[in-house]
């Protein structure tokens, strides 16, 4: 499973919002995939999306990428993300690395960094909503 939440802004209307995408890896055994390669090379098949600002062409102001087994429990995603944040937060963004049940990437514009926890929580909740509606 690969779910990404992106805070985007339209270059034309200046409208901002969160677009979220859920990809699944049906038929691919978790132990046989290269987890760090999933977002860029093997994102999976797009199962569902939630669009606030119509793509393409919007600037991505922040993103949260979550890679985990298709059958993951969301509570495990949340705990893994919190641990990842605790581990990485002494260093600068962007962050990328393994979590307890997969792989995570977080990036954010400097202009958002003064409220980074709130920004990250907004991305997280958008991912959670999409997962609850369309995940396993």
């Amino acid at each position: 499973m690969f779910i990404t939440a992106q805070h985007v802004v339209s270059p034309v209307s200046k409208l901002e919002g969160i677009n979220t995408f859920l990809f699944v890896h049906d038929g691919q055994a978790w132990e046989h995939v290269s987890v760090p390669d999933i977002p860029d090379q093997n994102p999976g098949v797009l199962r569902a999306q939630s669009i606030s600002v119509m793509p393409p062409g919007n600037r991505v102001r922040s993103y949260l990428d979550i890679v985990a087994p298709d059958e993951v429990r969301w509570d495990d995603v949340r705990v893994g993300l919190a641990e990842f944040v605790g581990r990485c937060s002494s260093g600068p963004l962007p962050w990328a690395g393994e979590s307890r049940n997969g792989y995570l990437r977080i990036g954010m514009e400097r202009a958002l960094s003064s409220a980074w926890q709130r920004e990250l929580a907004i991305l997280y909740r958008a991912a959670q909503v999409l997962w609850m509606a369309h995940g396993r």
Partner: protein
Amino acid sequence: MTERLLERYRMLLAQLLFEREAAGGDLPEEEESRFVAALDDVLRQLGPSVQAEIDRIDREVTQVPLQVAEDPHFVDLAVAEGTSVLPRKAA
């Protein structure tokens, strides 16, 4: 030992603050208590002599903007359901 405990304190605090935000501002009491207990345990092990360090960590985690080494340089893509493309590309 002290450095390791200070790092553990910082990590727990960062985790707690994220968990609160992710929960919309308030954690269930049981979750909050779990974090408080873990933080208290670390503070007990550290002792009072490192209070200035604790205060510094509290300020950094709660008030100092996170450093950003590199802004994202992406624009998003339209992706059709059933396809397999990362929904952003380098700007």
